């Protein structure tokens, strides 16, 4: 008995690994996705260790030359490889430190978006009827309320911090995965094995989570990934408009400072790192996501 269950655990582990491998393998066959994946790995590294390896404190320390004068709006030099800001801060250090809030908002916002969307879509599609009607009207409502203005409004009353921002983002973005997952659940529920599960006496919870949910999970993963990119873009946009967390250095806030200070006319070195940082991360997420979509969507899969 015990050996049997150990065996079955081993097989299950093996099959889980196989499943994971089969779901990650697509990255190696698709060049853009591989590039995106590499960038993301670098980004996660920056998010984890960026603040530690930053040569200067991004906000407090100023870059000085040998004579001790503060270097303001200085192009890249040895002391400051990405140049300095109008306030004499090191752009490189700010860039490194700014990766972390971007990563946090992206991950938490993405997972919350995907998670809420998955649950709403699953319940809505599985039960149908008035449950479906109610939940779908709710998504219609979040579609009709413009995200950016509503977020700005809320953030004028509430002191922005990274968690509030993430919360607002997730509260507006869950509708996207919810709709898609609902329609996937609708078609998955039509499939014979769901009927067959009911015929063998399975209850709603079992049918929903054991039989329907695993078959829409890939789509949920996909939209979680997209959620990460949306959250990062939304957070950067809010920060750019001056509604970011004022206490942390983020890429969006760096861009706000360069734009608001008018230094954008000259200080390209101050713009490029955060701008390309955001663009590279969001694009990478989508490139990997697209490739994954090709794998899981049988309709655009190879004939």
């Amino acid at each position, binding site marked *: 008995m015990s050996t049997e269950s150990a065996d079955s655990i081993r097989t299950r582990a093996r099959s889980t690994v196989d499943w994971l491998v089969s779901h990650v393998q697509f990255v190696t066959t698709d060049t853009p996705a591989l590039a995106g994946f590499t960038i993301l790995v670098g980004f996660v590294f920056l998010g984890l260790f960026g603040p530690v390896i930053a040569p200067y404190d991004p906000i407090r320390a100023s870059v000085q030359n040998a004579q001790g004068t503060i270097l303001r709006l200085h192009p890249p030099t040895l002391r400051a490889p990405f140049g300095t800001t109008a306030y004499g801060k090191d752009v490189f250090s700010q860039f490194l430190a700014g990766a972390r809030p971007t990563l946090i908002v992206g991950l938490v916002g993405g997972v919350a978006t995907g998670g809420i969307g998955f649950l709403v879509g699953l319940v809505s599609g599985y039960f149908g009827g008035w449950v479906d009607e109610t939940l779908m009207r709710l998504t219609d409502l979040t579609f009709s309320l413009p995200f950016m203005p509503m977020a700005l409004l809320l953030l004028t009353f509430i002191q922005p911090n990274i968690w509030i921002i993430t919360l607002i983002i997730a509260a507006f973005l869950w509708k996207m995965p919810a709709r898609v997952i609902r329609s996937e659940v609708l078609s998955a529920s039509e499939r014979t094995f769901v009927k067959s599960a009911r015929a063998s006496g399975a209850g709603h919870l079992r049918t929903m989570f054991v039989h329907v949910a695993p078959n829409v999970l890939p789509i949920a993963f996909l939209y979680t990934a997209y959620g990460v990119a949306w959250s990062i873009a939304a957070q950067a946009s809010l920060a750019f*408009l001056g509604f970011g967390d004022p206490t942390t250095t983020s890429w969006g806030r760096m861009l706000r400072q360069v734009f608001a200070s008018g230094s*954008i006319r000259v200080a390209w070195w101050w713009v490029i790192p955060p701008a390309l940082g955001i663009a590279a991360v969001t694009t990478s997420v989508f*490139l990997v996501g697209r490739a994954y979509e090709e794998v899981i969507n049988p*309709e655009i899969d190879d*004939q």
Partner: protein
Amino acid sequence: MSQFQRFLAKRIAIAAGLTLVAVSVIFFTLRLLPGSPFTQLVASGNLSEQQVNDIMALYGLNQPLLDQYVIYLKNLVTFQFGYSIRQSRPVWEILGPKLFNTLILLVPALVTTAVLSTLLGMYAGWNRGSWLETGSIVTTTFLRSTPVFITALLVIIVFSYNLELFPAFGMREITASPSGFTDTYLSLDFAYHYILPFTVAVLYYSGDFLLLARNGIIEKKGSEFLKLHRAKGLTETEQLMRAGRNSLLPVLTYFALRLGMIFQGLILLEVVFGWPGIGRQLVTSISQQDFPVVQAAVFLMALAVIVMNLVADVMSAYFDPSVSAGGGS
């Protein structure tokens, strides 16, 4: 009543209900949040007692919340948006021209990109695996997933500050003071300021249309009916046109949805380019806490989305011969 009319009636009822809920959310967000702007404004002491009383009366601020709500709804139904607190002008006088500026920028951009990107996407889908397909997907993915203000900043740095080809800011020269429609919108100066934001908008919107069209074509490419078309002796181009016609509906629907979202403007694009559109106005009004303007602007945006959602729904039902208008059997 035909089935289609019934479907239409149901959709309109839902849209009306949604609008009501949306405006209510806006109302209560503005009143219930801590440090409500109206009380702040009144408490700030900048206004004379007379002005305070006028404002209180106009919005019914001295009445219970529920009565305020009713007054608010009444005003909306009659499109009376009231007066701007900051500018002491009717709200519509402020928002109208801004909305027009936004539409004149974004509607042509959306139409342009819808046509060009869809065609390109169809071609890319038909030639699946070609460098053109991969290239166009990577490019548009970059353009679509990068926040629009970043693209705009990069474009400005390259084309305005370095190449100095186009102006970076505004809709006209600061010195220009055009009068009348023709002078404002049909001048060379306007076109000169128009090009960069227009291009960025076109690029930003291109990704969705391209992918939608491409996926549609790929789905149709292996279909039985195309095989029959091929057997009939149709040329490649003719087959592509048939596949395109068959995947057009999602593109059209998406176009309608996007058109609704346009009323929100592209806030960040307008901010970066200093384009005097509704989105930029909204940001300004929010930071100035000019709430009648905010209220009206958000209402207009929500209404546009709801209406265009309705249009998209009805359009799919109407134009798809194989889907019954009842939304299923």
